[in-house]
């Protein structure tokens, strides 16, 4: 847990986009890891095995929540920015948004969970298609098509946000 805890939590955070869900997901994943460590095959990547567990748990949780609208509570107890509502220019806010890449963040939230998982593994974790296929539990062809569609969609969404008056969001990625 000391070795893989941070990476696992970061992966969970990227999948869920909020701290509370990421905590729950990482915790459930580690409990599962401790209970099922005997099923780990030596010689394979331990982190990839944990990622697979996290991915499966996340998918199960999304299926369970299907139809239930959830809005994560603000972590800092501050009013949250609502989409398409940033109209007043504030240098501090602008700098903050520039750091968090809100346009891209929104675009990533617009992806399906499957597409998002593939994008995270391919572009952030630098996994090969083969490794992604093993982690997600699908074929390499499916990984390829999901990644292509996701990236096309991201480009469209970011382009739309960049275009003034269309997305209404901040013009920075």
């Amino acid at each position, binding site marked *: *847990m000391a070795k893989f*805890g*941070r990476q*696992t*939590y*970061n992966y969970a*955070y*990227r999948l869920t986009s909020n*701290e509370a869900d990421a*905590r729950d997901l*990482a*915790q459930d994943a*580690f*409990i599962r890891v*401790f*209970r099922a460590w005997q099923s780990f095959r030596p010689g394979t990547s331990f982190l990839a095995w944990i990622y697979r567990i996290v991915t499966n748990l996340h998918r199960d949780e999304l299926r369970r929540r299907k139809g239930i609208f959830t809005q994560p509570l603000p972590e800092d107890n501050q009013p949250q920015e609502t989409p398409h509502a940033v109209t007043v220019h504030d240098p501090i806010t602008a700098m903050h948004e520039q750091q*968090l*890449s809100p346009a*891209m*963040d929104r675009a*990533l939230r617009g992806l399906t969970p499957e597409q998002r998982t593939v*994008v*995270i593994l*391919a*572009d*952030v974790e630098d996994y*090969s*298609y083969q490794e992604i296929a093993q982690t997600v539990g699908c074929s390499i062809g499916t990984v*390829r098509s999901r*990644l*292509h569609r996701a*990236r096309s969609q*991201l*480009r469209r969404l*970011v382009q739309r946000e960049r275009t003034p008056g269309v997305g209404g969001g901040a013009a920075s*990625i």
Partner: protein
Amino acid sequence: MQRQTYIMTCDLCRELLTDYIHGELDAARDAAIHGHIQSCVDCRNEWQAEVELTESIRSAMGEERELPMAVVVGVRHAMRGQAAPGMLEKLRAALRPAILGPAAAAVLLVIGIVRYDQAQHATSALSSSYFVRQHVAQTIGSPSNDRAWDAYLLTSANANTADVVSP
């Protein structure tokens, strides 16, 4: 070994750009795209846009966070709490029908074997006693069989001969 060469078109190049920037192409196609984007401005712009997209994704999601202590505490708590019910879990698992069925069958089989064995012994004891008594009853008073009676008295000089009347 002859190296395969590709005639790279703009359409094919754009279709393969994602795989190209993720390093998922074989050497021949990788080289063909590399050569194409050097000479085609439009495809080079497309490639540049793909690279920027990857960088944007990384900057949006690449932020590293520390593992919250709440996760560590939660996992420890869950694993500690698991220690006591672990035995119950094992017992429950052992009593599952899949295991209980064959186990019950095995127990019944053992009981059956033991009872059969006991019954066999009881029958043989009864029958030997019965036949000896019958034999004695039939030969009482017969001088030619006194030797058999004496032998019987010698071997069964205990309580089970109390009901036999001596000649």
